[in-house]
């Protein structure tokens, strides 16, 4: 213990206690600090562990099933080996493009609206609703589009799936667009107005190009996210084991195909589900990485 025995210097030693040695209480405080901080490190390790495990299992179970046929063929009937998910890839491509076509103009327009009308109470309401929309369960959006588009068309279709994904896309892109437009320095805009540009030309000609890379990043991240969505497509795009280009017909999507294969009882289909997941993750990650590293906004603070 720290209390020194009686020595000629006892008094001065007591005065210099912090330097000489710590009391029991202080040592306990230090130990607590060490242990608790170490525990936060453990929490970090536990969090990253599932990521490593998921990647390990995806590679182990999925890599073997990836071949040329996997990309170019349609699903094989039960019991036959081979087959691929080419039509699902096509379907996902169609659905994501369609949702971008429907959703992006609205989302970017709404984002500019929010950035330009910061103080208006209506914009406050729109901003709040947008944030709340971001949290609506995707399955509820699927059901809404079913009551809206599928029922009135009379059948499932790629178009309905595109609308469902667009409704998911809009709130995400709206908020990133707003943030990116706000990051553009005010002087740029003032310069435009001072030169006699109208407000709309200032926005479209000066502010938007300056915010372009940031908006593009947000768009790519959002597209990658909706490309992995299953729930909103179950009752809209529905799935289709054949090639389908027409937007008025049901189409397949990669996540829907993975879901159907995963809950099936067949071993070959499980392997295709793993391979499909590997492909899906590779696509999502490639887009996210591209967004993160290739496109850097000059005005981003972080």
């Amino acid at each position, binding site marked *: 213990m720290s209390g020194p025995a009686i020595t000629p210097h006892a008094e001065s030693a007591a005065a210099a206690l912090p330097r000489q040695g710590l009391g029991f209480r202080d040592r306990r405080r*230090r130990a*607590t*600090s060490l242990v*608790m*901080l170490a525990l*936060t*490190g*453990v*929490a*970090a390790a*536990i*969090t*990253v562990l*599932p*990521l490593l*495990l998921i990647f390990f*299992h*995806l590679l182990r*179970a999925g890599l073997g099933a990836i071949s040329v046929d996997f990309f170019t063929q349609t699903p094989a009937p039960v019991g036959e080996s081979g087959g691929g998910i080419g039509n699902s890839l096509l379907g996902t491509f169609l659905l994501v493009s369609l949702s971008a076509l429907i959703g992006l103009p609205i989302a970017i*327009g*709404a984002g500019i*609206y*929010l950035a*330009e*009308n*910061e*103080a208006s109470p209506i*914009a406050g*309401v729109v901003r709040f*609703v947008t944030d*709340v*929309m971001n*949290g*609506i*369960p995707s*399955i*509820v959006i699927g*059901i*809404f589009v079913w009551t*809206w588009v599928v029922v009135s068309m009379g059948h499932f279709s790629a178009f309905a799936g595109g609308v469902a994904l667009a*409704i998911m896309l809009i709130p995400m892109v709206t908020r990133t667009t707003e943030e990116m437009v706000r990051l553009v320095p005010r002087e740029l805009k*003032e310069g435009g*107005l001072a030169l006699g540009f*109208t*407000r*709309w030309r200032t*926005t479209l000609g000066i502010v938007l190009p300056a915010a372009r890379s940031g908006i593009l990043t947000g768009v790519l991240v959002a597209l990658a996210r909706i490309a*992995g*969505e*299953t*729930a909103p497509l*179950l009752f809209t795009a529905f799935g289709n084991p054949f090639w389908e280009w027409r937007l008025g017909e049901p189409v397949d999507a990669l996540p829907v195909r*993975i*879901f159907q294969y*995963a*809950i099936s009882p067949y071993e070959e289909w*499980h392997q295709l589900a793993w391979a499909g*997941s590997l492909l899906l*993750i590779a696509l999502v*990650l490639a887009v996210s990485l591209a967004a993160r590293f290739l496109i850097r906004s000059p005005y981003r603070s972080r």
Partner: protein
Amino acid sequence: MQATPEEAGALPGPPRRGVAAWFPGWWHGNLSDRTYSMALAAFGLTIPVLFLLILVRIGRAAWPALAAFGGAFVSSSDWNPVAGSFGALPFIYGTVVSSLLALVIAVPLAVGLAIFLTELAPRWLATPIAFGTELLAAIPSVVYGLWGIFVLVPWLRDHVQAPLAGSVGKSIGLFAGPAYGVSILAGGVVMAIMIVPFISAVSREVLAAVPVAQREAALALGATRWEMTWQVVLPYATPGIIGAVILGLGRALGETMAITMVIGNRPDIPTSLFAPGYTMASVLANEFSEASDELHLAALMGIALLLFGITIIVNSIARLLVWRVARRAGK
């Protein structure tokens, strides 16, 4: 009315009151500017209109079931499409219990991770870990489900459920029963993995917004690093972290694919975490395309409406909390 930065560069116009105050740009500029500001407002208003449309459409479709069962719709536990009786309690129970379980697992991990990243980890360690958690957040739900079915569920069955059910499970009902694998526990664990990145990302932002002066003051008073974190930084950040947790809860409540694949899909109200359950989102995913008669469809719409309402309330609370903290930090 305070001038916004955008308005600062504009020409002075008549004083803006009432409706005019809501649309800056309407009172100055030429016709093209007015058209432009109206067009932007139309885009912006699309979102609330869409929101109301969802509410009205689903509410109308759910009305027959709500009118037929009234309060029994949420308090009855009898869900039998063949007999035509629809009580949503098992699904509400499954959703709430699995989400709470996910929070119990996820919150300490996420907050610990956030503290580790903001207070402790050197940059060379913090960057890859933060990137890894971002990757976790980017993994699609269906992939978590696939991994859950074939890896997590068998592992939980053999290494968690079986030993626990054989020992403590005999006296504690929560861990009792046969180890099926698919269970509320499996659902909670998968959801916890899914929401940790989300909660920790928001928590990190909130922790990073705590002023450095607060930390320095605590250290100068002789606090250890942990005392600084626990007694100064965390209390300052608590409202924001609670907001982050509620956001995570909202996400867990609405999660569909992964949990449908691992929870077992049985409309019971089990007392054991090891028993299969069912959630609101799962029953929608499973039964919606098979609903044949009107009442079954309306009952499912009722569940969708309920889920919609709950997530809106939860998300609104969380947003208000996070906003308040952000505004305070911005001052």
